């Protein structure tokens, strides 16, 4: 029973998992294997980024989705018995990891934010959030493989080392999945990545109408920041794209300044701004939980406060 396996849908996340995978494989004195989806060209590159073995998954027909690989991956895992199996926590990744874990009768730590080997050097200690981010749970896995899904950007991408050698193993073509993809619609326009933004102004459900988003934008401009939102704004109202949603099911940001406008501050959202240097909030409910999570708050109606604040920031009184 040996080996560390990593599986990610895309290139960047494969490199991130190769980085942590390399550390674990070296400590365990075992091999590191990376799955590669139908792109043989990439094999040598992944080897140079740290993989010892490439498990090459064959191309799928147009109408098949990632889930078709489940039987092939699970079977290979039964044969090779890896000790650790990390999967990038993309949406598809999370689903197939759970299903593979079920086939292998093993435990899976979902959205693992930290993983280290314990004192014995054999077991992974994994951390994840629970209760919407109000608590962190530390788990170990008694069964093998020890599985975890790892959110994007939890680890830095691996660094290339030329001259590394490795082996490529081609996995068999999977049987067709009962699930058929009928159509793929790409997102209309890709929003900017705000994970590195220095200032973030976040719109919450306290904004009444879509037109009023202009007010939030104006504030963002006045403080030189990017705009983001809470889940209801992106999911229910669709006023902003989902990749601007901050929180447990969205992204984590770490700006110098975060300003929440009409944001209540439920834990699932606040979890995503934990690493902000200064947190500010504008809310008309003085008991809103956001004020407990904020450094500076203004208690008041955003429709009165924000225009005044913009004026003040611009130095016009």
């Amino acid at each position, binding site marked *: 029973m040996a080996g560390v396996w990593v599986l990610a849908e895309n290139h960047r996340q494969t490199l991130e998992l190769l980085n942590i995978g390399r550390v674990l494989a070296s400590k365990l004195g075992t091999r590191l294997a990376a799955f590669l989806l139908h792109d043989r060209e990439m094999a040598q590159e992944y080897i140079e980024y740290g993989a010892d073995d490439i498990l090459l998954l064959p191309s799928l027909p147009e109408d098949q989705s990632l889930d078709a690989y489940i039987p092939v991956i699970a079977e290979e895992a039964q044969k090779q018995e890896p000790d650790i199996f990390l999967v990038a926590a993309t949406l598809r990744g999370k689903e197939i990891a759970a*299903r593979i874990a*079920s086939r292998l009768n093993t435990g899976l730590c979902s959205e693992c934010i930290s993983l280290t080997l314990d004192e014995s050097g054999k077991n992974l200690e994994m951390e994840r*959030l629970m209760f919407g*981010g109000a608590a962190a749970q530390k788990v170990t896995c008694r069964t093998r493989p020890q599985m975890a899904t790892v959110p994007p950007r939890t680890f830095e991408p691996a660094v290339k080392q030329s001259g590394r050698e490795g082996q490529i193993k081609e996995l068999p073509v999977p049987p067709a999945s*009962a699930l058929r993809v009928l159509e793929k619609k790409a997102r209309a326009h890709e929003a900017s990545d705000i994970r590195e933004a220095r200032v973030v102004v976040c719109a919450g459900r306290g904004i009444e109408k879509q037109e009023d988003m202009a007010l939030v934008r104006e504030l963002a401009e006045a403080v030189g920041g990017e705009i983001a939102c809470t889940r209801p704004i992106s999911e229910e109202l669709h006023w902003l794209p989902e990749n601007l949603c901050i929180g447990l099911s969205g992204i984590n940001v770490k700006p110098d300044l975060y300003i929440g406008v009409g944001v209540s501050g*439920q834990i699932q959202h606040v979890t995503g701004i934990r690493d902000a240097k200064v947190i500010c909030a504008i809310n008309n409910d003085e008991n809103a939980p956001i004020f407990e999570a904020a450094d500076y*708050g203004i*208690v008041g109606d955003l429709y009165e406060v924000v225009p005044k604040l913009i004026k003040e920031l611009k130095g016009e009184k």
Partner: protein
Amino acid sequence: MPRIVVCFKWVIDEAYIRTGASQELDLENVDYKLSDYDRNAIEEAVRLKEEYGGSLVGITVGVPEATKGIKDALSRGPEKAYFINDASFDNLEPSQTATILADVVSSQIEYDLIICGEGSSDLYAQQVGPRLAEKLGIPCISYVQKLGIENGEIIAERKMEEGVEVVAAPMPALVTVVPDINSPRVPGLKDTLMASKKPVISITKDQLSQTYEPCLQTAGILAASMERNCVKFGGELEGIAGFVESLLKEGVIS
């Protein structure tokens, strides 16, 4: 006409969680609620039943005290509920919950479609649905934002990072739904009264045929703390000036 099963969970309302002395969780005064996204799961099941006919039952695994949750779920539309309960079912992990659900579903319920929430409010593991599908050997469609039935097949729009993926799967199938699929209606007094008359089939631990050993071991749970200044200003000009001054002092604006 689809026979629909909806899975729901009765959970601690995280808004009541306080942090105890040394970072441990203080669950002394917590209240419970129906897991947020399971309200969307139930609403979608009700909507499908309204559109296509058929039947709708709810199922939950939990401690015997979770009866309030069953009533809450039943007031939202299912005709009856399966309640698999035991005092030891308070800290089950997803692999155990899925095994228990699969055991009862496969032995006692005829179904065409199973609906789960995207993730539960307490664990948010996003595992029970996919694991259950796998145990039952049926297709799984996760993260669904739009759901319909055409020619006896499930047609679903999945919300993926890069856009929408429209998929089809034969029934029986399992789907997990994201919250933007619908806005759950709020049950009225009449719904609540009707709920208490609906049948609840209680299933105890000794009636289960499969074992469900945990795979994971929890080494500890600590509250995630957040130390902040918590300074509040008023919304009048003076307050706003004070606010801006504080940000200037922090050096986060210039």
